[in-house]
């Protein structure tokens, strides 16, 4: 039910992003999602790839600090109110959203939301009770390259 996401520490300076991007491109990793959180001094690059273990060891060999996080991906209809419904389900539970971002799958007309919860397992349980089913990794990468 959980999807592995890799996070990289980046300095906030020109060119910081291109090095990991080039490394991943050369090794032909297909990046499914990508987002950047940034402050004035540093940034965190977060992305989901199918073969995350390989991507991780490649980046670590190159001297990056890599963190692996459990994300929960939820499919929503690409229409107003999709996100609100998920958040509503989590209201009055101790589960906290640390951050989230949305993306769409090309050609499928579906919206996907990637959540980092304070407690992913608890979140999954709450959501399933409300009839919201997180997407499995396999489904997520169906049709996508390595």
């Amino acid at each position: 039910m959980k999807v592995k996401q890799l996070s990289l520490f980046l300095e906030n300076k020109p060119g910081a992003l291109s090095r990991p991007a080039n490394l991943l491109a050369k090794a032909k990793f297909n990046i499914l999602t990508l987002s950047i959180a940034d402050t004035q001094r540093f940034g965190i690059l977060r992305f989901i790839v199918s073969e995350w273990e390989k991507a991780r060891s490649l980046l670590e060999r190159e001297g990056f600090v890599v963190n692996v996080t459990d994300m929960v991906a939820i499919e929503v209809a690409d229409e107003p109110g999709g996100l609100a419904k998920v958040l509503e389900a989590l209201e009055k539970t101790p589960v906290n959203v640390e951050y989230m971002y949305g993306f769409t799958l090309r050609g499928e007309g579906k919206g996907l939301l990637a959540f980092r919860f304070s407690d992913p397992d608890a979140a999954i349980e709450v959501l399933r009770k409300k009839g919201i089913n997180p997407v499995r990794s396999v489904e997520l990468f169906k049709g996508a390259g390595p």
Partner: protein
Amino acid sequence: MTKYDARQNRRFHPVSAPDFLPLPQLRDLQLQRLKAIVQRADDRVALFRKRMADRGMTPQDVQTLEDLAKLPFTEKSDLRDTYPFGLFASPMEEIVRLHASSGTTGKPIVVAYTRQDVQVWTNVMLRSLAACGLHEGDIIQNAYGYGLFTGGLGAHYGAEALGATVIPISGGNTQRQLMVMKDFGVTAICCTPSYFLHLIDQGSEAGVSIKDLPLHTGVFGAEPWTESMRRRIEQDSGIRAYDIYGLSEIIGPGVAMECVCQAGPHIFEDYFYPEIIDSKTGAPCADGQEGELVLTTLGKQAMPMIRYRTRDITALTAQPCECGRTLRRIKRISRRADDMFIVRGINVFPSQIEAALLSVEGTLPHYQIVLTRERDLDVMEVQVEVTPEVFGDTVGALERLEEKLGKSIETTVGLRANVCLVQPRTLQRSEGKAKRVLDQRKM
């Protein structure tokens, strides 16, 4: 406007009399005091007594000033190893003041004063201020920090004893410093030279031209500076800038001070006996030759320092000064024999920064200290390489880490530092050893 110029002032300040002792009498006085202080240290300081015994020496072996060279050195690490009170030679009942200065680790070093020590300190600070032509009637803005740092109170006591009007404004708050300087008709200021440059700069921005104020004298110390900084200060503010030298371990400010000839600080030799040694071999250097300054306190009761290694590199000269003082002079402190650096007048050792980082996270071994000067104020940035152990995926966690590291440095060193996390393997390493300090300040 034409400012007051101490060189034109022919008044001789009576407190300066000991500065002009004929040499035979000065040497006699030094020897007399040296014998007494060695006896006192041997009687009362266990570490010194042990070192004397190890050499098979007794205080009776000191019969001439040259015999001083046979005595053991005292190092900064001795103060650390005996922290806090291990080198005191007076019982607490007789100690009226404690100050502290940077140690090489997380702990500071502590120095003590008896009532008489405070009088000696007051006397040498008084003679320092008199040496650059200040006297009663002057209004002195004392912008050295008050507190554990010896700068503030040292200058304060001397200025009061001089009969001058003291403004104990302490450090910081530049706008208020400028307001007071202008509104109170300040004639002299004590602060670090870089802070004074900052005052000039901020003043011109706020429409206060120090050139047009009554301020005529600056007593600058607590950090290294250069002749070109002196010229800049004098040109831009119309004052005369004097170099004062001191260190807490010896007494604080007032160990040495320039006279109106501005030809290098005269050491108040009746209280502080100077030697210059090769910092590697410990061998004495000839007159005028550069080496490490070693000082012996000749009149300090609470904490006698015998042959204290200052780690300051300078040269000593017995060449007569035009002012007629018989006190020898040192050159400007050019550099250090260790890795200490000075930020805004505060001594900092890289090992202190390391201790501060380690106290927060045991896993941050790679750091670099970058020193810059922004608008004449020192800025210390500590760059720390991120490790997997501390990288927590959220921005908040990293920001909290930076904040915690910054606080720990501030607590240890007494200085704010900008902590900046950087990618691993990005900091310079030379010969396998990290280059800890990158000093990009232009002086």
